[in-house]
């Protein structure tokens, strides 16, 4: 099971691709097949299983599109 | 028609501003009165851009087109935003490559041009606007196609002269309307 999980508020995505550059495990990519209501190709996750929940993608997203969840651990 | 009033609209980057300028320039060369008016301001940021062009035999009062004789919609938001600005009996030119719906309006002439697809056939995605322009000119007769070619020659000089042939070709392709 993945340690982390992210969801997108997809209609607010502007397709800028910064989340893609931020993911250390390279699982975020742009969905070239989809156009959201604002006319952009939104980002999505290709291999959800690999998500570590590091939140880098969310931290990098200028439009606060991403929510990140992680398995509870002591920190 | 003695009075052509265009609203030309699309994404920033689709070349809608220069479409309008070329039309106005050609009108001027043919001795007509012309005006060109762009939208400006933050709505241009990532949103749609549009310009108003009037080509007329008489002096033009306001460069604003409130009732257009032709609307050119290069993308979907443009169609929804401007279809109501078309006067009864006016023409709407729809970029069928990006728009797959029809206008809700009645009493208008609608033309569908797959401008991007045709441009891709010509190996140059940037000339979708010229394809559309060809179609507009053919249908409205607002200016002569030769005048537009002359404009292109004036616009693309030096370095850029090599772009003339492909632009001319795009214009020509556009003259073949897909109704």
């Amino acid at each position, binding site marked *: 099971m993945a340690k982390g999980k992210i969801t997108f508020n997809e209609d607010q995505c502007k397709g800028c691709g910064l989340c893609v550059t931020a993911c250390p495990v390279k699982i975020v990519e742009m969905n070239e097949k989809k156009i959201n209501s604002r006319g952009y190709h939104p980002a999505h996750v290709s291999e959800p299983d690999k998500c570590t929940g590091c939140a880098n993608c969310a931290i990098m997203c200028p439009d606060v599109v991403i929510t990140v969840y992680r398995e509870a651990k002591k920190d | 028609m003695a009075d052509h009033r265009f609203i030309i609209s699309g994404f920033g980057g689709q070349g809608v501003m220069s479409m309008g*300028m070329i039309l*106005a*320039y050609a009108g*001027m060369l043919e001795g007509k009165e*012309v*005006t*060109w*008016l*762009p939208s*400006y*301001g933050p709505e241009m940021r990532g949103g749609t851009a549009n310009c108003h062009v009037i080509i007329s035999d008489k002096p*033009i*009062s*306001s*460069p*604003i087109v*409130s009732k257009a004789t032709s609307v050119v919609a290069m993308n979907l938001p443009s169609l929804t935003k401007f279809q109501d600005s078309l006067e009864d009996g006016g023409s709407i030119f729809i970029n069928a490559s990006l728009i797959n719906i029809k206008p809700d309006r009645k009493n208008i002439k609608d033309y569908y041009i797959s401008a991007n697809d045709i441009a891709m056939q010509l190996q140059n995605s940037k000339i979708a606007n010229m394809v559309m322009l060809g179609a507009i000119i053919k249908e409205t007769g607002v200016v002569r196609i030769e005048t537009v070619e002359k404009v292109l020659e004036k616009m693309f000089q030096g370095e850029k002269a090599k772009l003339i042939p492909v632009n001319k070709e795009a214009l020509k392709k556009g003259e073949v309307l897909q109704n």
Partner: protein
Amino acid sequence: MAKVLMKGNEAFGAAAIKAGCKYFFGYPITPQNEIPEYMSRELPKIGGCFLQAESEIAAINMVYGASGAGVRVMTSSSSPGIALKQEGISYIASCELPCVIINVSRGGPGLGGIQPSQSDYFQNTRGGGNGDYRTPVYAPANLQEVIDMTMDAFDVADQYRIPVIISADGMIGQMMEPIEFKERTGRSLPSKEWAATGTNEEREPNSINSLYIVHEDLEKHNWKLDAKHKLIEENEVQYEMYQMKDAEFVVVAYGTTSRIVKSAIMDMKKEGLNVGLIRPKTLWPYPYKAFDEIPKSTKGILTVEMSTGQMIDDVKIGNNGRFPIHFLGSPGGSVPSPEMIAEKIKNILGGEKK
């Protein structure tokens, strides 16, 4: 010369350069950015200087410096930016320095919006800076006038040693129209011996100054400026009378608005209604005398402005109690349509209260 298609803002720049202006100091603000941008491209080519100032205040004071140094110089801005220049304009006026200031106005007050507006009429014609001074204000209605008036403005500035304002709006700044540089018969202009160019140790020092600490001296200076203002009022008024013969009704409008009024007038003519237009081309000096030419047949006057009503004060002064005055305003960046105007007039003639 052949006609060229130009954007209004660039036409301001082109005309200025044609008029021999090699210096421009300005600060970005929508909807006039193409003026400084044009100047930044073109002035270096002719050995002139474009400088982006840190603010409108710095820009107008650089203009003060450059004008005092004896050259033709221009600045441009839009509404709130012009508000910031008021102190500087007052200084320039007091020192009797020539320069040209373009206001491509937008909706206000405050930050307002960026769409075309005429709500800077007071700001342009009634100073806003301190003290007794006036500035000639040109109001072009099309791009050919942008060219012609800009070139004239430099001459008028030099002839009278006075800052000249050109009052345009976002639409005029942004639109394109064919223009042409016509042959001009220049005015004979005084030479600038007063300029602070360095004495070269060949003459007494010049100083550019607006301080008169002895009030009798300041009073004398004020009357001197006043005499100049009277001279300008006598010689430099410009206006257009359009369809005024037998006008049943008269509209007063300037700039962009006047174009739309003309359209409305044509439409009404088709319906058999004779409406005339007084179009001030100079907002100061204001064409008060145009009101003397209004035919007796006229039933009333409508002032149309893209504001909630500013020029109407001058209309009242010009009218001097003769005809009933009505108002149609379209503030905030909204541009009136010919239909609105025609409807208003028909309502008035149909009995609407003023």
